[in-house]
């Protein structure tokens, strides 16, 4: 089923020596993080994807050489995980969530609008090489539905119009800012390098939290709701309405563990 293939009769595809020389120090650094070398395989695949934009036969051969594995062993892993592209794609991977909740909230409409706007089918790339369109599964931002991901950065609460503007801006080379993420979207290759475990220094960019993430906290602040006070600062606990058996609601007696903690 794999789209990775060795060219028949020509042996295994390989990176040129200069590419190997460039990637090898990074590969060694990745391998050194783990007690056992093979654990480095997923980040190594992210690393070769960062170099080529996808995981090629040569990229897999590089990983196999670094870890003393067979190409078949690497291929079996590379084809299991959906984040590894099996062929060239765009600088920006635009993923529209069409799992149930986002689909119902408008993800289906966004996705069909983008397919029509870009004249692409699932997995297709625009002719200018900028945008690859796909539908993705739940990306853990359901309270911001419908969600669109660009190179795995969050674009929350989208609709067909904002999504069309988003891909237009990406194709025009404008700086595009995720809702919760870095100040601008990086390229697919740059993102893959971060996933391989090489920092781009952008962890401090963007908001700490936004909108729905703060909904409960905001309400609690307005209404003066707090967690029970710590016994060390205030012996009185707030009885919980949901505690049918709450015999110890005056925890002034230090527990054995707390005693041990002193």
């Amino acid at each position, binding site marked *: 089923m794999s789209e990775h293939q060795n060219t028949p009769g020509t042996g295994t595809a390989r990176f040129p020596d200069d590419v190997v020389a460039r990637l090898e120090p990074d590969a060694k650094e990745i391998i050194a993080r783990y007690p056992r070398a093979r654990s480095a395989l*997923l980040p190594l695949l992210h690393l070769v994807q960062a170099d080529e934009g996808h995981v090629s036969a040569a990229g897999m051969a590089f990983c196999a050489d670094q870890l003393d594995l067979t190409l078949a062993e690497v291929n079996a892993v590379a084809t299991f995980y*959906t984040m590894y592209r099996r062929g060239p794609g765009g600088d920006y991977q635009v993923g529209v969530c069409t799992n*149930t909740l986002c689909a119902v909230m408008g993800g289906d409409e966004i996705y069909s609008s983008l397919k029509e706007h870009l004249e692409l089918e699932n997995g297709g790339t625009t002719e200018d090489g900028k945008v690859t369109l796909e539908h993705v599964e739940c990306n853990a931002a359901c309270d911001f539905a419908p969600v669109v991901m660009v190179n795995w950065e969050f674009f929350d609460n989208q*609709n067909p119009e904002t999504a069309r503007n988003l891909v237009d801006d990406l194709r025009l080379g404008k700086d595009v800012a995720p809702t919760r993420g870095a100040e601008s979207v990086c390229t697919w290759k740059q993102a893959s390098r971060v996933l391989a*475990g090489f920092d781009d220094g952008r962890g401090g960019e963007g908001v700490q939290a936004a909108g729905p993430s703060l909904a409960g906290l905001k309400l609690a602040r307005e209404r003066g709701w707090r967690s029970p006070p710590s016994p060390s600062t205030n012996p009185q606990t707030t009885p919980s309405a949901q505690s049918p058996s709450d015999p110890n609601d005056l925890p002034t007696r230090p527990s054995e563990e707390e005693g041990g903690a002193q």
Partner: protein
Amino acid sequence: MTTLTPILSENWDRADSYTLEGYRATGGYQALRKALDTEPDALVDLVKQAGLRGRGGAGFPTGMKWGFLPADNPKPRYLVVNADESEPGTCKDVPLMLANPHVLLEGIAIAAYAIRSHQAFIYVRGEVLHVVRRLRQAVAEAYEAGIFGNDVLGSGFDLEVVVHAGAGAYICGEETALLDSLEGYRGQPRLKPPFPAVAGLYASPTVVNNVESIASVPGIVANGAEWFTAMGTEKSAGFGFFSLSGHVANPGQYEAPLGITLRELLDMAGGMRPGHELKFWTPGGSSTPIFTDEHLDTPLDFESVGQAGSMLGTRALQLFDETTCVVRAVGRWIAFYAHESCGKCTPCREGNFWMVQVLDRLERGEGTEADIDKLLDICDNLLGRSFCALGDGAASPVMSSIKYFRQEYVDHYEKGGCPFDHTRSTLWGDRATTTGGNQ
């Protein structure tokens, strides 16, 4: 009345909440100092006494998991944090790691010390780039501050922590599949026993805990078990995130004691979107059988939700109103399970594949009565017949939706099509048609 208890989210409205400085300014890492002056076994007992249960869905007691590590095994011990948040509807760990990664790291340091592990891994799903950045930045800060590395805060305890990004596979949220993935293999679940406590990562004793479980530990250490059990119910102690999404006026994260009800949460979240009514909802993600408005007063704790026929899961409350077609919703979930089945077990791999075909034709109005029976028959062959819970999870929405909404399945083939206008369900469905539509 139950009120919210912001604990892990308490500092999220500080702009610097994700930095070491910001975390320390709100009392961060004081629990670690206290823990390092405590005997490790006493910390395990403390977490047992608090009754903390796994926040990743299964609800297994965290302290017991720690206590299962065999004392006589000479191999290194590993702590693995499951940050592969992928269950449809579940969206709590990602905002937690974005806004407050250090509470997780403090929990890791305490947990590793408690189980006598010197190597921890955070397995984070790869599809959340900025979370990976934030985690790596926080880990780097922690190393620099002497919180990780050799001689943690001068205690003589050594701890290495590695952030490991996955590559897109829901199944890796299953703890043994996660371990295979972390070892560099395809993420396929292992047969248990042996459990990870005996033979986990590299066949060594391993604890795998969810992000929120580990992040809950510093509060327990700082404030004691009784502080924790003052929240929640007797058997479902403490607090957790309740993640409201869908057709609710104010979706988002609501941190509350376990045992709160959806009626209370909905009241806090401003109710359903104006002019609409609750039709069905998931209490804990797509793998938990759906509920209806009959269950508004079911306490959201492990026992009560179980008794009502579902599971508390990850407290991922996806709310759907009367505009939503249940056949479409379930069909999309099953397409997800079919896509994410690792292929190891035949009932899951084949059952989900065929359920997608049957649900698609039902949704198109081309099904028959026999298709409903066929779905139930497939579920009967799925439930309990695969290595891991993915197969069981797929049966949940199908069986529960037929239980509560059988007539809606019938309506589809009797009317020759889906009786719902899907555009009415969208975020902009109630607004003037200025944003959606064709160009």
